[in-house]
């Protein structure tokens, strides 16, 4: 009976969903501020600083996320850094995604008319304050849609953690499917559960866009 199977598998998958959310939220908490730092360093007026930042960004973006994860989980112990598989996946995903977030923020900042910075400076505002009060609020509005797609991608990529045996939702699904052969039921449920998380995320973005874009309405 499929219905019985669903009832039986749901708690197991929900356990996995909790871990999926943990990875996503953890990676979000790491990648957002770190991405912002990368973006600022890349925009630095000091050439060596921006060069180092953009090199790191490009190297990390050029690696498959799964390789990054393996590196952190399997190679770091060789240099004495031992992480649990959950820690490794949060750090790996957070670090990897910080570079995408950096590019999102940078393009948002660069989309703001340079005249805005000048106008703020012309009333005596310092560069940092002008950045915070004038440029960033506008940049955030521009960056919001790509930022939200990045977050959704992060949620989905948390499935990669299954490869280092983190008991997140995809891994839980695999385990059930392997022992029951109920592939259709299990993977349909896994898909539906992912959608139950990702679709509301997209919805929240729409609401935020409207909130931060209220000056655009006539």
């Amino acid at each position, binding site marked *: 009976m499929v219905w019985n199977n669903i009832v039986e598998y749901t708690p197991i998958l929900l356990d996995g969903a909790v871990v999926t959310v943990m990875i996503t939220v953890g990676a979000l908490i790491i990648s957002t501020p770190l991405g912002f730092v990368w973006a600022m360093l890349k925009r630095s007026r000091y050439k060596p600083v921006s060069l180092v930042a953009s090199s790191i960004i490009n190297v990390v973006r050029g690696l498959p996320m799964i390789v990054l994860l393996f590196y952190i989980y399997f190679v770091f112990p060789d240099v004495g850094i031992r992480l649990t598989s959950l820690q490794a996946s949060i750090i790996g995903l957070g670090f990897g995604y910080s570079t995408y977030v950096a590019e999102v923020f940078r393009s948002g900042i660069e989309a703001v008319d340079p005249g805005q910075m000048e*106008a703020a400076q012309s*009333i*005596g505002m310092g560069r940092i304050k002008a950045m915070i009060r004038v440029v960033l609020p506008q940049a955030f509005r521009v960056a919001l849609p790509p930022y939200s797609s990045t977050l959704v991608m992060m949620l989905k990529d948390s499935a990669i953690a299954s490869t280092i045996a983190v008991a997140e939702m995809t891994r839980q699904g695999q385990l059930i499917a392997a022992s029951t052969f109920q592939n259709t039921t299990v993977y349909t449920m896994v898909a539906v559960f992912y959608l139950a998380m990702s679709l509301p995320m997209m919805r929240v973005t729409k609401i935020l866009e409207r909130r931060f874009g209220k000056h655009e309405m006539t």
Partner: protein
Amino acid sequence: MIEITDVYKSFGANPVLQGVSARVAAGEVVCLIGPSGSGKSTLLRCINGLETYDEGSIDVLGSRVDSRGKNANALRKQVGMVFQRFNLFPHRTALENVMEGPVHVNGQPKSEARRLAEELLGKVGLVTKLHAYPRQLSGGQQQRVAIARSLAMSPKIMLFDEPTSALDPELVGEVLSVMRSLANDGMTMVIVTHEMQFAKQVADRVWFLHGGKIVEEGSARQVLGAPKEPRTRDFLRRVIGEDAEPVSSIERHSVS
């Protein structure tokens, strides 16, 4: 108030200012005219440190404007600037735009800044638009908000960088009339403009820039009415029209 001494600047290999010297006295209204690429805007932007310069010196209100444009914040509180493209903060209402400087630069209490902003927006004729966002305003209205935003810092000098060039012709007059009343109040103003009729009426002095130099300088009446330099005559002829009538006979309905 402003003392410019032998200022040179180039963008890469391209010289923009080639030895400009000039001064502006308190309460004077100076109009900078000249063909595009003559360095008018660059000179204006050097005065409040938005642009760097290579050689020479600029002193404003008794202190040196750093040639690399550093530490200009204190200076900029006293030198207002109005831009061609208005550059209002789009995410803030007219009122918030005007309050931004007093509250977040000078640390004035909000209620006080709000009263000042309302008064200034009233002065530029926008008392009904306090809560409008820039997007909801016409170009002329936006530029008047921008003027009010600068005035909110109680500047001693106001710089205008082609303030009416981005406006539809029928909106030019409302901005010029605000500027005219500022001039009548005794504000020291430096204005880059193509509005010759306005310059004639309002300016005490006119500087004609050509190829990065001030090639003619004098009273508005003299420079615009009876230019000595062939290059000035040539420029005025092209700006005003083929006949090269003296400026005073040109009709411009938008100037009220």
